[in-house]
């Protein structure tokens, strides 16, 4: 298993380098001058040039990238062009918000998605299955951004049950924390929840028809034991794939959803850093999100080994 994990890690590292270099080059190719953007009102060309030199923007692209990457692997992501604050600190301030949001969204995805998928599989072909399938199909078609706006209007503005904007840390209490996250998490989780439902329904329904399940039931094993120990585990592989794929999408979805709910997470930070050409922050975010996605994919790959030992070889 360790060798398998190391092999997967060896594949992940070049991806990290490639992604960060691409973003580095893209930002560099974009029109406009970051030095001018931070030089204040009506800067002189000399002043802009002074800032360019100060930021090392006069160096060749490759030199700057190597210098950035060398520092980044030592956890030094540089300083924000917006206010000189350390990028690690800027991202560190925002990361708990996004982690909380993604955590709640994925929790909803798993709990509701698996429960609905299992129910549909157990009632395969019956009205319950058809209703769940129809709802899941509908949920896939709804844009999260639109869902977010509807949720705000309904539950915040009209009913006043939840705050419409802002964030409270978990240290402020469970409900204050959760109340700020529930609506955005629901908006984010709708699509992955629907996909998990559909995938789990299909996989479980297929597994439930296999001979070994019939045999297990014939041996007198209880239905929950058959489902939990024998059927669900084998049906979990496609669900795990969808989960990992959708995790990256949920992380990306925070960019829009955090704006709607004014959540001060890394999604909103990414938008601000793009608009203000705060390149160090942008690169730090890209490196971090790439790393997170790679780690999740790695964990999923490793989980395949757990679910199906044949893939370890």
């Amino acid at each position, binding site marked *: 298993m360790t060798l398998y994990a190391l092999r997967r890690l060896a594949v992940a590292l070049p991806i990290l380098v490639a992604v960060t270099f691409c973003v580095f080059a893209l930002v560099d190719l*974009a*029109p*406009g*001058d*970051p030095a*001018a*953007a*931070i*030089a*204040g*009102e*009506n*800067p*002189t060309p000399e*002043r802009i040039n002074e*800032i360019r030199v*100060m930021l090392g923007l006069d160096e060749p692209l490759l030199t700057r990238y190597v210098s950035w990457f060398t520092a980044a692997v030592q956890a030094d992501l540089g300083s924000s062009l*917006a*206010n*000189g*604050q350390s990028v690690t600190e*800027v991202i560190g*301030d925002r990361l708990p918000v996004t982690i909380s949001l993604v955590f709640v969204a994925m929790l909803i995805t798993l709990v509701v998605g698996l429960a609905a998928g299992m129910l549909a599989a157990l009632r395969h072909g019956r009205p319950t299955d058809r209703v769940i399938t129809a709802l899941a199909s509908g949920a896939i078609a709804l844009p999260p951004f639109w869902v977010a*706006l509807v949720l*705000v*209007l309904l539950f*915040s*503005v009209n009913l*006043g049950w939840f*705050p*419409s*904007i*802002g964030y409270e840390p978990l240290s402020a209490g469970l409900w204050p924390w959760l109340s700020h996250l529930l609506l955005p998490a629901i908006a984010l989780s709708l699509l992955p929840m629907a996909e998990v439902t559909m995938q789990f329904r299909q996989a479980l329904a297929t597994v439930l028809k296999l001979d070994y399940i019939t045999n297990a039931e014939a041996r007198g094993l209880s239905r929950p034991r058959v489902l939990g120990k024998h059927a669900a585990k084998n049906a979990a592989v496609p669900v795990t794939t969808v989960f990992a794929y959708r995790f990256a999408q949920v992380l990306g979805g925070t960019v829009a959803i955090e*704006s*709607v*709910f*004014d959540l*001060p997470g890394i999604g*909103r*930070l990414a*938008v*601000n850093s*793009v*608009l*203000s*050409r705060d390149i160090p922050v942008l690169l730090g975010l890209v490196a971090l999100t790439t790393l997170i996605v790679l780690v999740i994919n790695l964990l999923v790959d490793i989980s395949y080994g757990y679910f199906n030992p044949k893939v370890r070889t």
Partner: protein
Amino acid sequence: MLTTTSKRRSAAAILAGALLLAPLAACGSSGSDDKATGSPSAAADPASFDRTATITIGTPSPSNILDPALQNNIGQNTFTFLIYDSLTQMDSDYQVQPMLATSWEYAADGSSLTLKLRDDVTFNDGTKFDASVVEANINRGKTLQGSALVAALNPIDKVVVEDDYTVRLELKKGLGAELPAVFALNAGMMVSPKAFTERGGELATDPGTAGSGPYIPVQVTSGQELVLERSDDYWNDDTAYAQKLIVRTVVDQAARINGVQTGDLDVAQISGASPVQESLALVDRGAFEGDLISQATPVVLMLNAERGDLKKPEIRQAIAMAVNREEMVEGLFAGNATAADQFYAEGFWAHDDDFGAERPFDADAAKKLVEEAGGAEIDVAAATGSTAEPVAQALQDQLGKVGIKVNLQSIPFAQIDDMYRRGELDAQVINASPAPDPASTMDYYVTSGFNAARGHGDLFGSLVAEAADPTKSIDERAAKYHEIWKIMAEKDVWVPILWGQQVWVRNDKVANVPNLSWVRSGFPSYRDIGKVK
């Protein structure tokens, strides 16, 4: 709450007397459609304010840099106005008024500017304010690495402390007329020398007690939220009516509107044609109250006479004549805007009341000019998501009708101005920010910076220098600027289009929004905001 436009107009009329005395907020709004909607009165008596109140404000600008010397955009003033006092401030007619400087006088030959200072001001860290503080701040602004004040303070050659409360600024020849007005912004904000000596770069993100202003920041979450508490020892009792201000950056307009509806925000600033209309509709439906404020920031089409078809004077003239301002005001802004024929709004001393529309809308004449020139094609840029973008789209339609093909360019805000300055764009629709003194505006937009006059040769002769002569009276200077505006209109250097309006949506307790200093710039000082008991 008032539910119709006519009722809002009535309220404005009732409040007119009070607004005449108000600071910048209501400035120059003669003839404007500013509407104070709802209760309490926009000009509520400060005696009725709850001095223990907390007010949560939603603003689009992020509080990134709280050191005035390092601020790289005007939006930061919304935060720093609360923390720092400045040497001067602006009144309702954009006239410079005293703040930390009680008076100022230019030498007869314009070679120096002498400022007399208040003697009763102490910084929140206990440092006494005096002439040496002014000297230290100006020198810091001119020399600090990364300082954004180098250009603003450039006219000052040397600072001389004459006595504890008198400072003389020796000026470079022919420069410095704009300094009293410049000192009303971050260039004039005074930071405790003790703070910038001991804490250096920390000030940008955590200014603490470095200011002498009415509020002290107690919690700074960079780019997100600034929490301030009133300074109990502030020298001016007629401001800072709340105990605590929370200025929260909420970038999304819809989120700000929702925030006020749900009570997460007490007041929020809304701009742009559609959001303003939506907000006013919600005001009419009773969702919240609102103050509609005419902005002194014109939307202007800048034309680069060094590029493509814009090199041809007849094409620039055709563009100026093809712009149907009234159609935009009604069609795009549902009447919540005012057609602009010049850069400075009515009420400001550099505004020309007798300015004739040099290029009245005349589509037929414009079409003829374009046909004679054999057609034209230009690129028109606007910042992505800005209030200028819909105007650029409307321009594409209007110019298309006279035979000018317009290719729209949507460019991120952080890049577009720099690209125009470097001459990489044909034309740009901007939401311009006229400086408090037109000498700065000329420098920033016309003769350097945006360099609107590029490609026109020597348009102004000695006029620019004469208009910026500090020894001249305001009336004499105004006359010179009126000549400059006329030349710019005749040569189609730029095309002022309209002044937009912004609405401050709020709950029924928040008061004084139309009276806030700088509110017409879109970046108000919230020092005077209050909440009635």
